[in-house]
């Protein structure tokens, strides 16, 4: 029906809002640096979601006004944050015990590529990248109960980021459960990518054209 020219891909804020909608009260959630961090802005405070940061902060609240910043309170992206009532501080080994021990309900990361088998590549853009920054991504990807990815559907020059198999160095194998792009939402299932939502005006043909893996559509 609708031509792809009518498509209205989600912008970055809409993407973050779309992820936030799917996070229920009570979950413990780690948001990766960059776009994932903005997801928190779309979770209302009265829906109690407990945000975790690798540097030992549990129960992160809204960003503070500049005048109220505590120099000793930052998140993993080195941004100033606040702590909600009920929040707590732990050291790095305990913080990653939470991650590695499967205590986080969800981690949301950005990615360069996600493969239909759930593999994720998000830390190095080439085998020859000699000083890539892995940070906590491998621990989070392997450790959280669920890994969701939020990323543009294609690179700036139009190459698909949803792929059959990752070309970039892996962050973790078979870890991704769901991908949110500017074009749609995709569950990673045993069959591969299953489309569970599409941005306004986006259709199957457009998704297929911009995806380098098979797409399954819900009946």
């Amino acid at each position, binding site marked *: 029906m609708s031509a792809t020219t009518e498509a209205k891909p989600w912008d970055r804020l809409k993407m973050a809002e779309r992820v936030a909608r799917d996070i229920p009260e009570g979950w413990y959630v780690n948001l990766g640096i960059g776009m994932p961090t903005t997801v928190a802005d779309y979770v209302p405070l009265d829906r109690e979601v407990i945000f975790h940061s690798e540097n030992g902060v549990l*129960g992160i609240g809204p960003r503070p006004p500049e005048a109220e910043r505590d120099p000793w309170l930052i998140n993993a992206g080195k941004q100033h944050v606040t702590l909600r009532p009920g929040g707590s501080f732990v050291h790095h080994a305990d913080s990653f015990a939470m991650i590695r021990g*499967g205590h986080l309900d969800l981690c949301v990361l950005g990615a360069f590529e996600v493969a239909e088998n759930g593999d994720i590549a998000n830390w190095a853009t080439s085998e020859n990248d000699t000083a890539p920054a892995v940070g906590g991504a491998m621990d989070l990807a392997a450790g959280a109960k669920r890994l969701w990815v939020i990323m543009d559907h294609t690179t700036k020059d139009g190459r698909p980021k949803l792929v059959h198999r990752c070309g970039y160095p892996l962050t973790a194998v078979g870890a991704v459960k769901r991908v949110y792009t500017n074009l749609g939402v995709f569950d990673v299932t045993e069959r591969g990518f299953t489309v569970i939502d599409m941005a306004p005006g986006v259709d199957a043909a457009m998704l297929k054209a911009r995806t380098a893996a098979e797409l399954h559509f819900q009946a």
Partner: protein
Amino acid sequence: MINKIVQTMADALAGARDGMTVLLGGFGAVGQPSVLVEALIETGVRDLVVVANNAGGGKGGLAGLMEAGRVRKIICSFPRSANSTIFEELYRAGRIELEIVPQGTMAERIRAAGAGVGAFFTPTGVGTKMAEGKEVRDINGRTMILEHALRGDFALVEAWQADRWGNLTYRRSGRNFNPVMAMAADTTIVQSQHIVDLGGLDPEHIVTPGIFVDRVVHVPYGDPPF
């Protein structure tokens, strides 16, 4: 609103089932989740594997659980003490299995389960009966043996203060195994002497963050001195 505080013992122990592994906090008489153990007896579940430092003493708590015939196996570091008569009778009669684990290895195996570490090399027990059947390896000039993570279905924990997010503090040596076990079970259930409002605990002083806790039940039994 997140609220991990439950009002009844039945709610606290919901999902208890035969054959499960229960991590039981406490060391000596201190930090024992005794009321939760009594409630566990009430549920009638049996064939339990219990992980605890001691094999129960006196009549109540773990000794009561054993006396009721609910414990198939106990994993502990110190089975015998002055008043561990119930365990000893059952053990002599062949009605309970025993796995002895060095106390630090037990604590570290439980922590490993909570921290997502599958197994680790430790110098404890090298060259002893504890090393029998275990992988031995020299690491950095030290001989070590491989020990595996020890996880529970339930952890029963005693705390001093708790809030509705499940954040916990402990009192003095009541800390012992409790924070470690709280990390290492599918369902962590807490009896807490005090319930405080959310925000009532200093974020620097919380020992067990609520992420490790599933249910809290209020069991006040008076502040010291008694």
